[in-house]
């Protein structure tokens, strides 16, 4: 009844074409069609944030966006966070602070935290915790994650000077 739809979008800075069924979420398109498997599926209903990506510069749950809705839009996934010069400070600080155990939630946390520190470079601990309330981690207990984000925010602020 419904044919696949041809979509063109800018994904991690690169113009990308794909075919998808209307029912496929952006998350399914990223993982199954484009093989960008850094974005994880957790709850698949908007609670856990494991599938976080940036859509037109806004943090969203890719499991709640239809693939067909990104026609002509810009998407950045975890694969687009590091640069050719190396890891993003958030990625580096997550490593240094051991802010992960199983790692399934980590891409979502890093994408969300990046959105936060770009928006509010001086976010305090309470603001960080509130902003990351849509990201669930079942291993670490969040303290190390919050410390990693605080460290990364400091480093980003230092670089900006």
């Amino acid at each position, binding site marked *: *009844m419904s044919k696949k*739809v041809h979509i063109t979008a800018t994904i991690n800075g690169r113009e990308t074409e794909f075919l998808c069924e209307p029912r496929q979420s952006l998350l399914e398109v990223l993982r199954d069609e484009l093989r960008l498997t850094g974005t994880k599926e957790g709850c698949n209903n*908007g609670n856990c944030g494991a599938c976080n990506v940036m*859509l037109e510069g*806004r943090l*969203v749950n890719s*499991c709640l966006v*239809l693939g067909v809705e990104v026609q002509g839009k810009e998407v950045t996934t975890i694969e687009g966070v590091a640069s050719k010069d190396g890891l993003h400070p958030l990625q580096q600080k997550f490593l240094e602070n051991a802010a992960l155990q199983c790692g399934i939630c980590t891409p979502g946390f890093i994408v969300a935290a990046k959105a936060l520190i770009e928006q509010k470079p001086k976010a305090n601990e309470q603001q960080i915790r*509130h902003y990351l309330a*849509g990201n669930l981690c079942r291993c670490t207990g969040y303290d190390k994650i919050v410390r990693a984000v605080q460290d990364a925010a400091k480093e980003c602020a230092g670089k900006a000077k």
Partner: protein
Amino acid sequence: MKNFTYFQPNSVKQAVGLLDAKWGTTELLAGGTDLLDLQKEYVAQPDKVVSLTGIKELATIEAGNTGTKIGAGVKLTAIADHPALKKLYPALTDAAGDVGGPQIQNMGTLGGNLCQRNRCWYFRDEHVNCLLKGGPKCFALDGENQYHAVFTTGHKCVIVHPSTLAPGLIALGATVDIAGPKGNRTVELTKFFQAPTGPTQREHTLAPNEVLVSVSIPAKAVKNASYEVRHKQAYDWPLVQAAVAFNYEGGKVSNARIVLGHVAPTPVLAEAAAKAIEGKAIDEATAAAAGKAAAEGAKPLSQNAYKVKLIEVAVKRALLAAAGGKKYWEM
């Protein structure tokens, strides 16, 4: 998810033309945060999905001296962060900023918040054929009902209305503009909601082939606030919400409107509470008395009597916050 045909019209008129005259076969997609979830659970199984994201006129905010008009497609983030709206209508902007988390606010829209389906776990379970899905009975009546209605008299289905933007907007006297096959109509937001009793009804009174276009708030400087009693600060629906709006001149309340959320299948206009505070100065005692009045007539279910007390608390704190211009954590 059942597959469907996807449409992305670029005008409201085209969108209306794509909708069927009965519920179930077509669905409107705005932010998608509720619809996709319902589709994944097979609670919604439309053949056609009509996306509203290509319609520019739905995404504008006009805030001026003659009143405020917010397009139904405006994102919750844009409402929560709008400087003029924040100043005039904290009852609306605070509620928008408390929905879900940043991810949900970045996708969710005003219209979607008002038209979202209820959160009853029996309704949301594909395998439970409850009254709203054409089944024999409401399973929450004698089942797990801790988050359900406490104003239950006359209701066969005891959901609570899930919108947290509705109570503040109703308190502020908002109206909604609706487009349908025969043209546009305007309805007071109080009359936009209904208690559904079966699969041919929704929590609102839109016809299946109508589209919510915008919400208008009259230009009146009123004290207003919304207070949500919550399990946690983010990522959940409130247990009980109260929104208030009133004139406060010479230290006396007039034209008070107090609206309760999450206590009945529709937002509830608490007239007794408004009457209790009318003509009075707001302090701990008068605000508490209004709270007590708001809870009158509640008939809780087996597991949710605690919500009656929360109504008292929510109304009291909303009144104090509105009068003092302070958030509850600053009080």
